[in-house]
């Protein structure tokens, strides 16, 4: 085991030496980078990133962080949570594999999102060791998420494909704006959950790639340079912009996901812990799925 760890560290340090020897940022490419900065025909990503990061990113993050929970707080106060009996029949919907994959992703997000905030508002925390540690954790906890993101994508892909039910779901916003318990058209996942699936999977992969780009910083990927026609530094600028913008979406839907499972539908979070979903919950919130299960004689 020790041997492998040593080998791994040696490889990493070798890799960083390799970057340094053939730098795409400070080597020969630096001339093109300097000449290309802010040029008419370029994408002007340098000035664009500077403007966005200087004026907007932190404020938008703060807006999402306060705005989304505030909206849900109002929702909770006015419409209130949906409460379903937890003593009735249950359906075993998530097996152990589903739950482990989900929990690994959940723990990763619970570290990645707060540490992301510490980085964004690093000046508030005064920088230094604390924020540096947050930055390192932000990177380290990407590894477990990277491992589970593909299995998670595959295990729920079929249920996450959009269909006609979803249009009706969106028209009434899933019935969350009314106190009534009317059956709502939805399969195993409703349109909101599907939206979160795609943002978490595709957005998550985008976050991993753009984040890895910024972490490794100086490397050469000929294919990518040819494909995009961009220099390394411009790709880094694009990565930083994409990482932040995608971050808004992931954050907003993550908060929504937590609110729904923890507050809006009382006790819904237990279904991903134990694997069992309440019959009433399925009957009302996932009526298409309920019909299917009933036809199969599961209830």
């Amino acid at each position, binding site marked *: 085991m020790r041997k492998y760890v040593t080998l791994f*560290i040696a490889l*990493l*340090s070798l*890799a*960083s030496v390799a970057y*340094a020897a053939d730098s795409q*940022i*400070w080597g020969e490419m*630096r*001339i093109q*980078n*300097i*000449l290309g*900065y*802010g040029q008419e025909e370029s994408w002007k990503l*340098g*000035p664009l*990133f*500077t403007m966005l*990061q*200087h004026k907007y990113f*932190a404020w938008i993050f703060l807006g999402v962080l306060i705005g989304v929970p505030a909206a849900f707080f109002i929702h909770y106060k006015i419409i209130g949570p949906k409460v379903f009996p937890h003593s009735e029949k249950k359906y075993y919907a998530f097996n152990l594999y589903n739950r482990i994959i989900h929990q690994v992703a959940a723990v990763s997000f619970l570290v990645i999102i707060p540490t992301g905030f510490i*980085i*964004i*508002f*690093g*000046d508030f*925390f*005064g*920088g*230094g060791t604390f*924020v*540096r540690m947050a*930055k*390192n954790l932000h*990177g380290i906890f990407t590894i477990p998420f990277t491992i589970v993101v593909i299995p998670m994508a595959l295990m729920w892909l079929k249920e996450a494909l959009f269909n006609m039910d979803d249009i009706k779901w969106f028209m009434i916003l899933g019935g969350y704006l009314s106190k009534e318990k009317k059956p709502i058209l939805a399969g195993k996942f409703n349109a909101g959950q599907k939206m979160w699936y795609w943002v978490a999977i595709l957005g998550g992969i985008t976050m991993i790639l753009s984040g890895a780009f*910024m*972490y490794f*910083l100086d490397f050469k990927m000929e294919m990518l340079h040819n494909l995009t026609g961009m220099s390394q*530094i411009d790709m*880094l*600028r694009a990565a*930083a912009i994409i990482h932040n913008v995608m971050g808004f979406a992931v954050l907003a839907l993550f908060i929504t996901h937590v609110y729904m499972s923890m507050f809006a539908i009382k006790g819904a979070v237990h279904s991903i812990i134990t694997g069992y979903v309440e019959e009433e919950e399925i009957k009302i919130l996932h009526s298409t799925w309920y019909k299917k299960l009933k036809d199969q004689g599961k209830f």
Partner: protein
Amino acid sequence: MDYARMKFYCDESRCIECDGCSIACAEAHELPVGISRRKVVTINEGIPGREMSTSIACMHCTDAPCEQVCPVDCFYIREDGIVLHDKDKCIGCGYCLYACPFGAPQFPRDGAFGAKGAMDKCTMCAGGPLETNSEKERHLYGQNRIAEGKVPVCAAMCSTKALLVGDSESVSNVYRARVMARGGKGSNSPYGWDKAYKNQ
């Protein structure tokens, strides 16, 4: 007291690409291998009449973009325009590099698993936020020659006096005199000044 605005200027018609400035810098500040705060680049290499060399480092920009994007606010701009940063605050995120028009910020990979360490860049030989001329300041930021009343080492050793550093008025005067002496030939404005100082 009114402070003069400190600027770098590299005369492309004088620079002979000897690389002395970048070596003097690395030696004076005892920079680790792989870090060069100053670099000599040749533009339009091989194109007759258009080839020129110039020495590039942090230009200590007006409205420094690095300072604008830093999430931990580790940059500070002295009254004489020198852009410095606090390495104890810096988290090595790399944003300043993305914002920089000159590719000046560099990151020694000294963290665990090759993570980026605190950013390093030219200080115009003005050290950092630590006690002036203290051992710690010298270790983290290099010499503080400005505090001693000395010219930054790159410009001090430049054999052709292509690289100048000083308050903007003096630098502009030298530049104008040189352009006049050449019969008005040469670029309209010093290379990089449009980006760094907005031609002011």
